[in-house]
């Protein structure tokens, strides 16, 4: 049972096609299992089509429709019916749905990118009881930051500096912060300046998908844990 949802402003930006990419990944993963957010997105897409309707058209060069139609004629000639040209995306989706059937722990759209086993990921140790794994090639992440974080039971989730919105989706276990307890499927949608100190569940720990608008800089956990002791 999902208790914590995405902010309406986040959903609207997603429907508008203007939400930073890393955040989109969390929105897609959450809405694939959350009918109430998915329903909001549909109304928000309707808003998009109404605004799109009123756009001032820019005439195409004369040859354009013929070019597109020529492309279509070529497709007809090669006996490709509209419905038979399933592209990579649909096959990735179909594959993801199969994965989802086997292991519903990972939302289908995400499974297409990370596979179906959370325990099988190339986890890298970030500090005491905390691991992370990038989704997609790290070097190509552009402005945003998207990664999975695995936290051992009863540990503090890594604090990181960032700007703008941060989205956290729980995939396994749960965590608790000053705001609430977040379980599987829940998403926490906060501004960068919100201070919170999430602690993972004492028995299960947690695995989360975390996205932030700007590149995240995870503070060295060891340094942070040692700091109070050494007084540095």
């Amino acid at each position, binding site marked *: 049972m999902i208790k914590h949802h995405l*902010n*309406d*402003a986040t959903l*609207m*930006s*997603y429907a*508008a*096609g*203007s939400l930073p*990419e890393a955040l*989109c*990944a969390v929105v*897609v993963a959450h*809405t*694939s299992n959350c009918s109430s957010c*998915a329903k*909001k*997105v549909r*109304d928000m*897409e*309707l*808003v*998009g*089509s*109404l*605004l*799109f*309707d009123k*756009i001032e*058209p*820019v005439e*195409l060069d004369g040859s*354009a*429709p013929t070019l*597109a*139609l020529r*492309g*279509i*004629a070529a*497709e*007809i000639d090669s006996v490709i*019916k*509209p*419905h038979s040209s399933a*592209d990579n995306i649909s096959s*990735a*989706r179909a594959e993801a749905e199969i994965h989802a059937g086997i292991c519903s722990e990972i939302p289908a*759209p*995400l499974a*297409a*990118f990370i596979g179906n086993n959370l325990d099988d990921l190339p986890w890298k140790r970030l500090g005491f009881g905390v691991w992370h794994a990038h989704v*997609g*090639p790290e070097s*190509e*992440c*552009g402005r*945003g930051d998207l990664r999975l974080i695995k936290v051992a039971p009863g540990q503090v989730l890594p604090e990181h500096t960032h700007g*703008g919105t941060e989205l956290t989706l729980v995939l396994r276990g749960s965590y608790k912060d000053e705001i609430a307890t977040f379980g599987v499927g829940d998403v926490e949608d906060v*501004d960068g300046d919100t201070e919170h100190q999430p602690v993972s569940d004492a028995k299960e720990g947690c695995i989360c998908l975390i996205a932030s*608008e700007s590149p995240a800089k995870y503070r060295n956990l060891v340094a942070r844990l040692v700091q109070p002791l050494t007084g540095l």
Partner: protein
Amino acid sequence: MQLMEREEKARLHPRSSKSKEMSELLSRVAERGDVVAFQELFENFAPRVKSYMMRKGADPNTAEELAQETLLTIWRKASLYSDEKGSATTWIFTIARNLRIDRLRREFPWQALPEGHNEEASDDTPPDEQVSERERKQRIHTALSALPRDQHEVVTLSYLEGMSHSEIAERLGLPLGTVKSRMRLAYQKIRESVEDLQ
């Protein structure tokens, strides 16, 4: 819904009539690869798609290519659309939107992710909701036109210019929180306008 009722509704709401027409064209493309219907769709949508792409910074040539590609995608995926599932314009908007994300905002190489489940017209809409789809659109249209100027502004920048909340905040010289609350308030009014249609 009975045909007569439908026609009556179309007469009362010219916008619905146009959108119904678009749905029919799209269905003809889906069902029998109707090239004439496609040409009509092309003439109706391609110039607006071109304009939409230019607003996100595409030069006229690129925008024209993207408009063609959008319409070709509509041709190829027409079978995924069904007029019982929702508005044709909304479906077409989502395709143009996804293509714009894909081509004009290369932040991540794995662009398929945001397309996810939304490009397909939703297939989980119960029958009673199908009936109210056009009414819904009409009401949202009214609510959208009635938005206070500051809310309408952030909504337009987000949808048409493709600006993120942070970019809007920068452009308007506002705190990020203000931009987000204007978006939220705008959505609240839109939701209120269709609340009794659930």
